[in-house]
């Protein structure tokens, strides 16, 4: 054991003295996450999608027209839109050119009159041509709002007609008028009551590579808690490859043979290399987790489950590339095979494309490959689930790591066996 620790410590000191490649690889997930952070801002880091900015040009300026913006500002969509009233088309053009708004809703003059008369009341929407998705969201919400508005008008047709007559007659109406109008609106409200549940709706949030998690309208769905672990796991596989390549080059330069002439157990030398790889990758994983916590606000409330998953994956990554290095005859062969394996399992595990987008028959593979299992386990834990909830994923990760470490030990040991 002492020799194993001595060899592992020796390799670790070498890494500390020459960390350039590892630092570069470490910078990759941090940089990518930082770019996303810069693009979407703190709101995303905090877990919310950025609000969609909607301009409203109200040419009617009536009681009913003022209800239209409430489609975006109330109910389940509250917080998802930022509504801004504009006074003229010049302002609209300037805001669109600056890509500072997704859509414009125009409420034409006479909108209230048409609505109360039961004739066709139209809203106009203008989409910002610089954007593709967000204007469509605005249009969708407006369509739903119009449908609901029509239904309300149908249900409240009687009392609304009475209001319109009173308005046209410029009469304040009697107490009896007010009572009947109130009763009519109340009855319409009761008939329409089922729609009131919309205001208390929960939104099911589906994120790439994970199951659904229910969050209330104001609860954050942690964006970075999904993206960052995937990046980290992907890059950790390449860091492992770089570390294993160093050990392979040692072997090619005759260092392994020299160590084999020393009066120490050859198993101890082999396990020293494995221990070094495992420990280095685990430390790097913890460092990346710390960066995620400090920079991107990822919550690490359950460190022990995360450590169990991380340790399993670090062991797998170490074993995988040491096994490849143990078989490869040259560092070029090891680099080719290692890269191919990493790309394939990363694709299957959902590092590049959300697993949800895969055909159904491929989707289960994502949780069977070690990186996919580890990634989904980490994401689930970051969303508040416990170790017991992800036991299957953790077991998958550790099974793979056991296999990889076993192969690595076998192939490395074989290099030391007398011929």
């Amino acid at each position: 054991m002492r020799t194993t620790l001595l060899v592992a410590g020796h390799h670790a000191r070498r890494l500390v003295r020459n960390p350039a490649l590892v630092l570069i690889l470490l910078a990759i997930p941090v940089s990518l996450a930082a770019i996303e952070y810069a693009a979407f801002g703190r709101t995303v880091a905090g877990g919310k999608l950025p609000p969609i900015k909607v301009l409203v040009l109200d040419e009617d300026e009536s009681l009913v027209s003022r209800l239209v913006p409430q489609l975006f500002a109330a109910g389940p969509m509250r917080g998802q839109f930022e509504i801004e009233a504009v006074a003229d088309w010049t302002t609209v053009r300037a805001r669109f050119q600056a890509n500072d708004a997704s859509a414009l809703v125009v409420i034409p003059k006479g909108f209230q009159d048409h609505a109360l008369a039961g004739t066709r009341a139209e809203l106009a929407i203008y989409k910002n041509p610089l954007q593709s998705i967000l204007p469509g969201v605005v249009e969708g919400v407006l369509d739903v709002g119009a449908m609901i508005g029509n239904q309300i008008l149908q249900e409240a047709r009687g009392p609304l007609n009475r209001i319109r007559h009173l308005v046209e007659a410029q009469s304040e109406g009697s107490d009896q008028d007010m009572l009947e109008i109130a009763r009519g609106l109340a009855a319409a409200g009761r008939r329409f009551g089922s729609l009131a549940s919309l205001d208390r709706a929960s939104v099911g949030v589906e994120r790439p590579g994970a199951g659904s998690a229910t969050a209330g309208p104001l609860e954050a769905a942690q964006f970075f808690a999904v993206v960052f672990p995937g990046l980290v796991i992907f890059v950790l596989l390449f860091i492992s490859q770089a570390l294993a390549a160093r050990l392979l080059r040692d072997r090619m330069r005759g260092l392994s043979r020299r160590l084999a002439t020393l009066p120490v157990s050859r198993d101890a030398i082999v396990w020293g290399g494995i221990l070094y790889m495992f420990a280095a990758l685990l430390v790097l994983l913890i460092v990346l987790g710390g960066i995620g916590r400090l920079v991107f606000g990822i919550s690490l409330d359950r460190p022990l489950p995360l450590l169990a998953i991380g340790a399993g994956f670090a062991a797998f990554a170490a074993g995988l590339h040491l096994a490849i290095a143990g078989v490869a005859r040259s560092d070029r062969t090891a680099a080719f095979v290692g890269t191919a394996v990493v790309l394939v399992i990363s694709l299957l595990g959902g590092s590049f494309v959300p697993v949800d987008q895969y055909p159904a028959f491929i989707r289960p593979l994502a949780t069977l490959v070690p990186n996919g299992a580890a990634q989904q386990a980490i994401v689930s834990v970051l969303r508040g689930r416990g170790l017991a909830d992800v036991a299957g994923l953790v077991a998958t990760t550790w099974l793979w790591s056991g296999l990889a470490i076993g192969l690595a030990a076998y192939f490395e040991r074989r290099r030391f066996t007398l011929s």
Partner: protein
Amino acid sequence: MPGIELSSVRKSFGATEALRSVSFHVAPGEIYGLLGPNGAGKTTAINILCGLIRPDSGTARLSGQDVGAGSADARRSLGVVPQEPALYMEMSARQNLAFFGRLYGLRGTALREAIDRALARVDLAGRADEPIERFSGGMVRRLNIAAGVVHGPRVVLMDEPTVGLDPQTRLSILDLVRGIARDGAAVLYTTHYLDEAERLCDRVGIIDHGTLLAEGTLDELRRAAGAQDIVVFRGVFKAVGDVPALAGVGEADLVSRSESELLFTVHGAEGRITPLLVVAQALGEVREVAIKQPSLENLFIKLTGRELRE
């Protein structure tokens, strides 16, 4: 008790016989040169003594202990200096020696003193803490030797440690080897440089195609070479076919013949050049003639039928 002992060792790699019943021994304080061209079997012998490969038959002993799988005692008395430096380039000289010293079981003050001694011996004490990737080739080779002897071994195996070095660096390394032997270590030194063997070694074994052809002190080997000179004709020759009678040449032998070279052994070569030239011209076109005086090289040519080249 010999420091190094190889007895009737055979080793084959597939159909290739790398060692054919090779035996030799090296006493403590002695430098034994194993001389032979590339592929002669020198490195195979070293690898067997290191415990890196197993002989098919025969025994290898270091300080009286069998070298075999897991023989830690035998390996503890052993220092190995491989042909190519096996060092960690990003580490300093001191860190490299500390790592190897610890694996040899040295600790604390003993380790520090051993490192200082080794650094002083290879004249690198002043640059002990620099990463060795900044060192010249000669400095790295010297440190390679220091890493092999940092623990004060009783047996040192050196596999062509001067290959590719400039003459000055080679001389300094030969001095180092002499110092190691003076300290009492049995040194097995493989080389294909004849001059190194002549300058450095107390005894020399000549090996070719896995067979130890001759061994002894330099005087013994020179005597074995006899008083005959070697006459070399270089040019373009018929590699096969009848050789004209060596009439009037005296006791001359054609010991080697190829399309580019003819080698004759003869007494008093200066007086026999003309008749030998006639014979050589009968076999082809002569472009160059050389006479080699009795030496280790002559013996090598006599034994192997070829010159020793890199």
